[in-house]
């Protein structure tokens, strides 16, 4: 028997674990959407609809069939890779998701980058100097960040940087009216424009990104900073740090190569969690900045009981989470010094 390396086995095991999760998601999302209040046939029949026209719509949407039949049809479509057609936007759900997901990921990714760049140094500084002014500053920033609702932060930033100062471009989505979207490669406008060597468009896309990313980033600062601080504090009290210090290693060496490497694990877990809830928190930011992302799509779909779109959204999010958790597990094995030694 071939001996599969431990890490590979771990990854394979995680992948297998995802299968029942996905099946569960398919069933639950189907049932939950059917439990939504409101009658989509009535909604989509439009104004001045008569009873007959509502019935016609119901039949054309396939909603006159029994639930099990509808479910089988849905699963059949899924197996063929079809997510169905969203009625509220009139587009196939798959097309819509593949176009909107990169927009959300780009926004969330930049927000996290911003968040990490601010929160980790803050957390480390706060941990090395507990109860100093920097610790208080850290506490203040994270409390403010998490307690201000994102739509408020967003509007306040728009008011200040766009309306009053005029530094920021008009908050009209991913690109100003002046520009064309770059040729599609990854769906991330900044990256696509760079691949196309179109620096002007890349700059414009980046300029559109800054305010929404900062808005979302402020919201996600708290857990990262708090976790960095707590983990660092704990690690810094460890015996091996005392030993390292006693051995006369420079404080930078102690802090960054020993303490941080050990403290980073819970931070990575937190990052995974933050990433997922940031995708959710996107909705309001997307509304304020007219960002054509996946969050506002899902909310619109929910409001009008657009079954196919909601199911597609839930399913793709579930997939994303499974992949995300897998990535975190894999990162763990790479980062954790203990896991590395066992092999």
């Amino acid at each position, binding site marked *: 028997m071939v001996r599969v390396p431990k890490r590979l086995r771990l990854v394979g095991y995680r992948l297998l674990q995802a299968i029942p999760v996905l099946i569960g998601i398919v069933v639950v999302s189907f049932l939950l959407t059917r439990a939504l*209040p*409101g*009658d*989509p046939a*009535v*909604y*989509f*029949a*439009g*104004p*001045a*609809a*008569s009873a*007959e*026209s509502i019935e*016609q*719509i119901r039949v*054309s949407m396939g909603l006159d069939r029994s639930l099990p039949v509808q479910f089988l049809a849905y699963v059949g479509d899924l197996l063929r890779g079809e997510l169905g057609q969203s*009625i*509220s*936007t*009139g*587009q196939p759900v798959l097309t*819509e998701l593949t176009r*909107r997901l990169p927009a959300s990921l780009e926004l969330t990714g930049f927000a996290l980058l911003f968040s990490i760049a601010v929160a980790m140094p803050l957390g480390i500084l706060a941990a090395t100097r507990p109860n100093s002014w920097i610790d208080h500053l850290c506490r203040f920033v994270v409390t403010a960040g998490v307690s201000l609702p994102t*739509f408020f932060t967003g*509007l306040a930033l*728009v*008011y200040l940087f*766009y*309306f009053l100062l*005029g530094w920021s471009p*008009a*908050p*009209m*989505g*991913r690109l*100003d*009216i*002046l*520009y*064309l*979207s770059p*040729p599609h490669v990854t769906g991330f406008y900044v990256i696509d424009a760079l691949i*196309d060597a*179109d620096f*002007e*468009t890349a700059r414009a896309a980046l300029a559109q990104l800054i305010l929404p990313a900062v808005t979302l980033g402020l919201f996600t600062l708290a857990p990262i900073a708090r976790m960095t601080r707590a983990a660092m504090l704990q690690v810094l009290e460890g015996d091996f740090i005392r030993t390292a210090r006693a051995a006369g290693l420079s404080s930078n060496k102690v802090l960054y190569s020993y303490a941080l490497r050990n403290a980073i694990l819970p931070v990575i877990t937190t990052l995974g969690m933050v990433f997922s809830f940031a995708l959710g928190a996107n909705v309001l930011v*997307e*509304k*304020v*900045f*007219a960002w*054509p992302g996946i969050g*506002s*799509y899902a909310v*619109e779909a929910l*409001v*009008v*009981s657009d079954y196919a779109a909601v199911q597609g959204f839930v399913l793709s999010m579930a997939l994303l989470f499974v992949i995300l958790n897998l990535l975190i597990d894999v990162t763990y094995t790479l980062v954790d010094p203990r896991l590395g030694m066992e092999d």
Partner: protein
Amino acid sequence: MYRRDFLKGISALSVGVGALTFLKSMPAMAARNDTLVVVTGTTINSLDIHRSGTNRPSYQVAVNCYDRLLTFGHKQLEDGSLSYDYDNLQPELAESWEVSGDGRVLTFKIRDNARFWDGKPVTAEDVKWSFDRAVTLGGFPTAQMAAGSLEEPEQFEAVDDKTFRIHLPHSSKLTLPDLTTPVAIVINSQAAKAHATEQDPWATEYLHRTPAGSGAFKVERWDSGQQLVYSRNDDWACGPVPKIQRVIIREIPSQSTRRALIERGDVHFSQNIPAKDARELEAGGKAKVVSTPIENCLHVLCTNLNFEPFQDKKVRQAIAYAVPYEAIFNNAAYGRGVPMWGGDSAKPESITWPQPFPYSQDLEKARALMAESSHADGFSVPLSFDLGQADWAEPTALLIQEALGKIGIKVSLNKVPGANWRTVALVEKSLPLHLENFGGWLNTPDYYFYWAYVKGNLFNSSNYDNKEIAELVDETLFMAQDDPSYAPKIRRMIEIAIDDVPRIPLYQPSLNVAMQQNTGGYEYWYHRQLDVRPLTLKQD
């Protein structure tokens, strides 16, 4: 502000990489004032108005990209703004039309020079195909065509290439106006049929994404959920060629953001803004605001007759005397619209609709009526409103709640999410007390009464049933308005509505549109969509 001033050179925004290199040097070259930017809060979900599920904001594509046989002329309102004129039918795709003596045969002559975008001349066959489609596909287009007594494909006849005929089961004053609605568009049947399939004989999938019309604007680009770009059809034959070369409709969901954009001058039009913003924008002086009372539309408080206490007319009248009309008008409508209370007499003198009902807040009278009613001790009732309409409905509901408390009616508030609203309020008609805002496209009182006062019809969410009104509606719905018996019948209808008050009018709402000072040509239309064809932009 160069971002408004798009280049004439890029005739196709979607040309891709080729244009990108060109684009980099654009700011230096931009000096034109022929691109308009419009922001809207709602998404456009289809380019085909006949398709099921097409939402209201999408109707603008039918308005701007397609032609109808007829249109309305325009008139100047008292405040100097422009409005379409219901009494002035004008030719659009038809060059002339004739009505037979009995009013049952309508013959239209189609313009010789009218061509679709692909160059094919518009023929009577296209008109027939388009009308057949509208009455066959079901849903909203079919219902709207039926309002003009257009129900069967057999009614439509292509006599020859340029002559189209409609046969009616009876003459109706609503038929010609109905032909101006965004539903009665003429589609390039040849282009559409080329993409029709056995399952989809009316090419709904194709026209959903690719309009095929003869209208003043073509759709140059549609990024669903983000923007729609119109570009001018220089060969438009059915009216004066638009001054504007390109119109960009951007979807900005947040009202605050839309307001910031219009105040900063980065966009030209913001369609359908809340009354509060309209007042503040106007006061701020940064943008022009045009507020037009929406014809044949009322914001009303409905008492559902399925709810036992409301079966007593005295209770309904008591409520009509308890409603704080003035406070609602000031705090929910921000003074925009037309008051619909405090009318002179319970016997209407004119057939103007809507007209003020003779109620105003008089708590003494309300209490007296309650005391005489079968529910002298009061009762509890939930007051429901549509969350999608919260900007006016929420303050209105709160004010009504407070006022009704004073006459012994305990009101609780029930907010219904938008999608659910139609089902519970209009289809199931199960909300005891609720706020409703029906407006009829065709501007005649009988049309309003047909939808809102006849048992079983969609907007009669009060479940009101009155034999006399039903008969009067039946008699007047198709009757010409200059028929001598028309006015007395309408007056009688309004009189019953005043006395019975199943629907308590609060005020007639306005359509508010904000625009930059350098724009012109804005015209109000009953369909409440922005007709971009007559818009102009002055050089800065």
